[in-house]
């Protein structure tokens, strides 16, 4: 398991940027979240080498960084696709047809929950309430949310992402 999730090697240039971001908050553990959120935007995966740089530059232990990342639902040490599709599966979305949305996503991308497409563009995940139940069923793709989805509108939406029409 460790092999699989930690095997990613980050490029030197990306690690330099990670170091730049982290060095600004030396001995400021309360800035760890901000650092990780910023770093996550410049590396494909929060791999071991990334955690090591953050720890070194912020003056933390590497296991503190690792245990932090693995705790939070929106952070991950695994390599994810360019677009992370998060499907809300809490009850208010569930009763408004979340299942059809899920089906549309997996039918279109041919992957299931927790998987990433081979071209590394899409990862599909389940998540708890997105706070937009007034338009459920809802999903979030990276930083954008979409609501009132049906099977067809979801499929059309995913296709727009496939064509990079976003």
């Amino acid at each position, binding site marked *: 398991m460790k092999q699989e999730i930690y095997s990613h090697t980050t490029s030197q240039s990306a690690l330099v940027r990670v170091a730049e971001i982290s060095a600004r908050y030396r001995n*400021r*553990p*309360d*800035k*760890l*979240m*901000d650092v*990780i*959120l910023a770093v996550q935007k410049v590396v494909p995966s929060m791999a071991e080498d990334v955690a090591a740089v953050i720890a070194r530059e912020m003056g*933390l232990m590497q296991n*503190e960084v690792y*245990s*932090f990342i693995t*705790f*939070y*639902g*929106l*952070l991950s040490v695994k390599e994810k696709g360019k677009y992370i599709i998060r499907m809300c*599966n*809490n*009850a*208010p979305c*569930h*009763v*408004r047809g979340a*299942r059809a949305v*899920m089906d549309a996503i997996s039918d279109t991308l041919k992957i*299931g*929950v*927790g*998987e990433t497409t081979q071209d590394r563009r899409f990862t*599909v*995940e*389940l*998540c*708890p*309430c*997105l*706070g*937009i*139940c*007034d*338009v*459920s069923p809802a999903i*979030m793709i990276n*930083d954008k*949310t979409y609501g009132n989805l049906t099977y067809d509108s979801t499929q059309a939406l995913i296709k727009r992402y496939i064509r990079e029409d976003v």
Partner: protein
Amino acid sequence: MKEMRVLLQNQGKENMSDAAVYIENGGYEGLKKALEMEGWDVIQTLKDAGLRGRGGAGFPSWLKLKFAYDTQSEDKYIVCNADEGEPGTNKDRVLLSCDPHSILEGMAIAGKAVGARKGYIYLRAEYPQIVPIITHAIETAKQAGALGENIFGSGFEFQISIRSGAGAYVCGEETALFESIEGRRGEPRFRPPYPGIQGLFGKPTVLNNVETLANMSHILRNGVEWYQNIGTPTSHGTKLFTVIGNVAQRGVYEFPMGINLKELIFDVCGGVADGKGLLAVQTGGASGAIINPFQIDIPLDIDHISASGGRLGCGTIFVIDDSNCVLDIVRNNIEFFSHESCGKCVPCREGTRRMYDLIQKICAGNGTVKDMLTIRDLAETVRSSALCGLGHSSVVPVISAMDNFPEVFESHLDGDYCEKCHMQRRVMKHG
């Protein structure tokens, strides 16, 4: 029935994140009054007004301020809980987007009351669109002299920063939230010490929900008497309700405390969507009780709902139509808690998992009467011995459903075919 808009009075107005626009609409008048008062008098005002927390527990807000007020520490903190993790809740998002200054003002008032100079807003990461709104609000408030070093020339200093969550429901729990801001896993702390004495960074801290803080601004602005005249004898003021699920007009509504639940669903929100019948209602999000249609003729105030075994909590009203199965909803709820359990304590980490397994077994038509007894036994253990509110409330939907819908459980025990449970069997597994 008409809404009573106090907290949402500025909804729909443009540029409400500009301090100047907020001030034009009567904003920061409450803070100005607080600046002329002694800290204790601000607390006394909130006490007289009878403000109670809007984040879940309905705890008297003045008492939390008093705990921090009574300490001698140089550094104290005000924290705004904008984690809004309770499934089905949208109200803090709406309030933050349409009137961010009312929350900043409330934080500064609380700061003035206890002598805190620093505030944090802990915002869930699922609301990235709110970040620029609050950032702009803070900047313009500083320019207008309503935040910063010398607020309105009074010599009082108050600064606010935003901190982000990253998708953990448990971080809405106050001590877990502090851990998260400090840069650690969001695992709740043992109590005592209580946050009022030792909270964020080990300093006295007052943590309030977004809506509670906004209420403080309006109470200071309009006075105690005005506030007391809204709502019921024990729950004053207005309340934001998020009405969602299978209801015709979903959304966030504001009404005086004590509005009738049935009227809210049928008269205000147009009843069940698509002409279907009402199966059940869950109040207070996933951690609230699930009740029958014949039980909904009740006033929505903090004490009434607690007396009926549920929680008004964050004011979430989840409407469930008769194409659903109560057991399927319970399974969804308990799966949520099992997934979000932080794992620090055994009763919750294991108990929620076992309850989920047993509910799942009953859904699949393989349950026995003994499983029902085991669920009750587990629930009692989790309720009485879990460390934080996540564990305590995880049993509420399970037990309330068993009490209120015994026939649904019986028919699944008998192995009667349930289309809903059968169809969903495969789908809702977490990745």
